[in-house]
């Protein structure tokens, strides 16, 4: 009797839903089998050797794929899986650093490209489906809803070169170059003095800040430098300041698991609530009809994920294809 009462008490006081019936659970996800089949055919798995680093959108039968540029493997182990076929010859043909999108090419003639939705302008609350972690042969999915207004996501903290300037110097002079920044890629060095940006003369630190104020993450700026008495000119990729100097994770970031390092500075993004991670970005975002209404571009935090809307995605596809075939 006592045991029975205790059991009842537990059931009455606290009930818990089995994990397979939760929003990301297998029983719920099973309702999206039609959309999963689209992912099976028309999403690409991006691999670094055997490790999945992201997904891609198949945009043509003859092997063109869009993916998230900043998550591409740097090691040379780039490989792609579409459906159940593995491709080890993968070319990176072009990149758009503002949108953080790369165009890949694999050797194939019978891929099934995504079917673009006529518009990304759907009501909030509309179901969307994206790639979840995959097995070697089977794509899995995650589902969620469109969750906020489609809008620009400005570079977090503003656009920056990735340098720390000397505090005591009146002219902007480099004290240190941040790792993985545009400044590092362009070879900026300690003690370099910045003379001009995009032809605009810079004499004070405040003028440098003004010149960068309207800059966009991913854009290149042309710098004239003075280095050891000589003038040097370089092009530097701008990035979001908060993404370059990441030493301070705030509490919300700590609650957000494995978010995308590049998660701001997008000219326009559709927001959804799919519980992804940095490792599942780059693939198509599908509606219930299995049509592509966007491309997943960032897991920003626990509550917010961003996708490039289909209108801009189509434009990017055309532009990058043109760039790739001169």
């Amino acid at each position, binding site marked *: 009797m006592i045991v029975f009462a205790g059991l009842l008490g537990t059931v009455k006081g606290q*009930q818990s839903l089995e994990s397979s019936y939760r929003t990301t659970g297998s029983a719920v996800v099973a*309702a999206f089998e039609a959309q999963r089949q689209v992912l099976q055919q028309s999403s690409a798995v991006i691999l670094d050797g055997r490790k999945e680093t992201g997904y891609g959108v198949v945009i043509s039968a003859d092997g063109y794929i869009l993916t998230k540029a900043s998550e591409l493997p740097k090691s040379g182990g780039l490989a792609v899986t579409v459906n159940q076929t593995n491709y080890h010859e993968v070319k990176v043909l072009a990149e758009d650093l503002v949108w953080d999108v790369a165009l890949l090419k694999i050797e194939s003639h019978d891929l099934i490209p995504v079917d673009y939705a006529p518009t990304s302008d759907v*009501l*909030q609350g509309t179901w969307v489906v994206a790639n979840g972690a995959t097995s070697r042969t089977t794509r899995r999915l995650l589902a969620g809803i469109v969750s906020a207004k489609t809008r620009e996501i400005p570079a977090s903290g503003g656009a920056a070169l990735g340098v720390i300037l000397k505090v005591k110097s009146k002219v902007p002079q480099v004290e240190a170059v941040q790792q993985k920044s545009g400044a590092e890629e362009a070879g900026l060095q300690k003690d370099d003095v910045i003379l001009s940006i995009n032809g605009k003369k810079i004499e004070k630190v405040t003028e440098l800040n003004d010149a960068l104020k309207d800059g966009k993450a991913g854009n290149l700026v042309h710098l004239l430098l003075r280095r050891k008495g000589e003038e040097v000119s370089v092009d530097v990729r701008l990035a979001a300041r908060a993404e370059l100097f990441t030493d301070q994770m705030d509490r*919300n970031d700590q609650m957000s698991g494995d978010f995308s390092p590049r998660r701001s500075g997008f000219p326009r993004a559709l927001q959804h609530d799919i519980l992804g991670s940095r490792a599942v970005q780059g693939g198509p975002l599908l509606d219930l009809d299995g049509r592509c209404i966007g491309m997943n571009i960032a897991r920003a935090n*626990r509550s917010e994920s961003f996708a490039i809307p289909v209108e801009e995605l189509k434009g990017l596809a055309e532009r990058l294809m043109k760039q790739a075939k001169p």
Partner: protein
Amino acid sequence: MAANERLVVNDHKAPENRQDLEMIQNAVRASLPKARAATVCIEIKGGSGSGVIVSPDGLVLTAAHVATGVKQKVTVVLEDGTRLKAETLGLVADRDAAMVRITEKGTYPFVEMDRDASTQLGDWVFALGHSGGFDHERGSVVRLGRLVRIADSTFQSDCMVIGGDSGGPLFDLAGNLIAIHSRVGAQMQVNMHVPTAVFIDHWDKMLAAEFIGEGPYAEKPVKGNGFLGLATDARPKGGLSVTKVGHGSPAEAAGIRERDVLLKLNHVSLETREQMQDLLKEMAAGDEVILEMERGGKPKTFTFNLGER
């Protein structure tokens, strides 16, 4: 849809087909405009949380850890950016429930509350809130999920909430308020909400601005720990003359200077130093003081909050 109509999809263990999925989607889409209009951002002491309006005259439900105390001045921000003066009413410190009233007269968009705890485990729900703070371009953020755990005075959902959402609303598919966001764990599945039943159980006391229960979500004000930061001397002709203003004190921040003459504290005429100290002993950190005074023969009134001793 009638507010009390229970959607059949809630009684399916999982959505069975496209029709079930569309039922959820259509319900969220239909409920969102009204739910969103009633969802607010609450700004207090440099921090920001969320809340939801539940009456046309501007009663707002939120979390105790957002309100932090009773009778505090706060700003309520509507979805369209309208900023409204408000004050906190009562709270339940051990259940993370609090009430706020918009003090500016008006008729406000509001939502209905689930009054008979009709929600069940597995029900589809949606969360709204100003994740990470108010963002006019973005608006409040909606998230869909299910009720994954029901315990005494706590709901858990798999709607992903984050800092800034605290105090925001959790709705059933009909758009009835069922709970208020309370706290999250590092694990994505851990999103905790305070059911409306907790508010209903304490309604009258909360309306009367009572501080109910002990921590952990709000600390009870301690009588006598309020800090003003003034030294005074009684004047023969009444009032107290300020002889010193403490550096970095609330009095200094409010703009009080030496040689100002204090006439009334919260409408009580001041006669002696001891009398003012007795008045302050009955107050706590965060309480509002209204000081009526005279500077260079001209009347002046300062209103500010006591600091913590």
